[in-house]
């Protein structure tokens, strides 16, 4: 089978691998779609921190935002059967350590991440295998396009879950208009937030957020975010802020926008320290800070079943055979896409 790997920084290339055979606890998945994630591009460019800390080395079998169909299962594979449409978790347990043997897979001592850190072979490939315990079945009526968005959406959903939205009461601010930010804003609405404000610097992405149900858009290049939040909340501030921009300079505005007892949820990493955290201001408002690493996949599947449409996040489709060149081009020149979806239909 064909797989796209990153051979070394700057060099994505197609390689032939034997079609994998599922072990007893695994399923063989035929890949139909894969979304291009910022992390993928950091692996391609070489700037991903885990490529430098000794945990992960080139060549990397990357890709992790996929939708696939189970083609075969090992004899002990749980959760899925042949023919199921599936998505998977990003962190794969070893199944052998003391915690895994107790069934506590979440605290596995030797995890591998799909297509990233300590690389479990990823989904830029015609096929991949994954333990059934880390797979989730997606209902038939959810398309492959939507299903491949579940992984980034699930990060957003964890942020929304941690924000503890009170339906009809909470006002949420989401900063950042990437796929995760816009999805988070849409899920805040789904959870019943009274008002959702999103801020970002790209007008057409704000427009997409608006079309997905966000109440108020703020382009901080044009208006002061804190002022707008205070105006929209009669001076109370936002009950929760979900920070999805990954831009450390946004944090001051996030803190200043928080209401009394507000909560900020950080989704993403910054790559640098927060230089001047006004910790007393944070204390005076009795705020809390939470972070997101996990994926709330079942909640996203439920939201999609409830009719939340996340497909406006897909701003471009390309074929799997075009993907390597597209990524090389992307290194030279960024596009303004939110989510680029890689189509595997040529193999189907």
């Amino acid at each position, binding site marked *: 089978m064909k797989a796209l790997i990153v051979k070394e920084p700057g060099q994505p290339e197609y390689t032939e691998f034997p079609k994998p055979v599922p072990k007893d606890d695994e399923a063989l998945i035929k890949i139909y779609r894969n979304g291009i994630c910022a992390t993928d591009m950091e692996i391609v460019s070489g700037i991903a921190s885990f490529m430098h800390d000794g945990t992960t080395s080139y060549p990397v079998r990357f890709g992790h935002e996929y939708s696939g169909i189970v083609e075969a299962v090992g004899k002990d594979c749980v959760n899925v059967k042949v023919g199921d449409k599936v998505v998977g978790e990003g962190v794969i347990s070893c199944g052998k350590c003391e915690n895994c043997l107790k069934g506590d897979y979440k605290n596995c001592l030797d995890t591998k991440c799909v297509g990233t850190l300590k690389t479990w072979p990823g989904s830029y490939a015609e096929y991949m295998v994954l333990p059934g315990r880390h797979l989730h079945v997606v209902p038939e009526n959810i398309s492959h396009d939507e299903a491949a968005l579940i992984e980034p959406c699930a990060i957003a959903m964890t942020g929304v879950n941690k924000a503890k939205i009170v339906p009809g009461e909470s006002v949420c601010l989401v900063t950042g208009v990437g796929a995760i930010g816009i999805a988070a804003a849409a899920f805040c609405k789904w959870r019943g937030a009274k008002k959702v404000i999103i801020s970002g610097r790209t007008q057409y992405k704000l427009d997409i957020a608006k079309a997905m149900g966000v109440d108020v858009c703020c382009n901080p290049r044009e208006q002061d975010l804190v002022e707008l939040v205070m105006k929209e909340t009669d001076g109370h501030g936002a009950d929760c802020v979900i920070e999805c921009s990954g831009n450390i300079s946004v944090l001051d505005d996030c803190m200043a926008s928080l209401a*009394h007892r507000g909560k900020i949820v950080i989704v*993403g990493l910054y790559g640098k*320290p*927060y*230089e001047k*955290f006004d910790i007393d201001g944070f*204390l005076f408002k009795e705020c809390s800070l939470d*972070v997101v*690493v996990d994926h709330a996949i079942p909640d996203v599947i439920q939201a999609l079943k409830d009719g939340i449409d996340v497909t406006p996040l897909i701003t471009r489709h390309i074929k799997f055979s075009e993907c390597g060149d597209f990524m090389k081009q992307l290194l030279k020149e960024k596009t303004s896409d939110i989510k680029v979806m890689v189509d595997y239909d040529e193999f189907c």
Partner: protein
Amino acid sequence: MKAMVAKEPGVAEYIEVPTPVPADDQALLKIHRNGICATDLEILSGAAGFMHDGSTSYPVRFGHEYSAEVVAVGKDVTEVKVGDHVIGEGGVPCKHCPECLAGNYNACRNIMGVGTLRTWPGSYAEYMVMPADCLYVLPDSISHDVASLLEPAAIGMNGVNKADIVPGETIVLVTGVGAIGLAAAAFAKHRGAKKVIVSGRTPYKLELAKKMGADMVVNPKEEDLVDVLMKETDGHGVDCIIECSGSVAVLDDCVEVLAKQGKLILISLYGKKYTNFDIDAFIFKEADMRTVMFHDTLDTIKAVDEGVDLSPLITRHIRFDEAAEFMMDLIKQERKENVKVMVDFD
């Protein structure tokens, strides 16, 4: 009656004021004890932030860590009766702003801090009045000495409550050995924490921590806090940290010794920004940060009634008529040898 006021920065003095008459919803309290709080000293020295932001001005009728007896009540009061032993909330809400109308009194935008911010007349006085619904009636088992420790202890308790301690499992680090830190350590132990570790720089206060239930103490002047704790937890780190030192310099160590999914609870104000917060390390650990500004008074009364002994926190007793001189002295010398100095109104 006699009251002590902070007249201007550096000057505490006694004044004669009429004994207050309780309004219909208020109780008149005779003060028996009052603990000296760091905030009292900041008001006296002038260092308190709210003395500079236009909200509060001298002279200040300060004092808020009191134990009192109800001696008269207004006609609408049902919450307390004459003879009750009481302590009170740290702030009196306005009851008419949007936050109060929503029942979120702690967030009252006009809140008058007892003896502090926007000053509700405080407890360095023979008598004070309080809205009766801001009072807590204490069981007979609690002495006046211990009662006046409940206010700072209740801040520690709020921190302990936010730490989500799992009995028999959670390892707690308390940084700071002031009254709040030591009380937090005692309550963490009372809640069943598997291990309570206290760090601080004053050896005799660390001894008090042990006396109050800490399993282990660390003096970061002598040992590397991170090394000791990592060794003690087999490299996992501590499940929660209750930061009561008020020193920004401790925060880097706190972030480093937190276990995966650990909780960092911040109790005190710092007076400066936290610089170069390693937020990615915090995110990788999936940690969370919670803050404490208020009191869990009922839980504190319950814990004390169940046998938690706070009295070792009192390291000195003085008389009310000695308090002004004592405090003026204290701010000049910046002495920190006491944990809690108790002012006696007997």
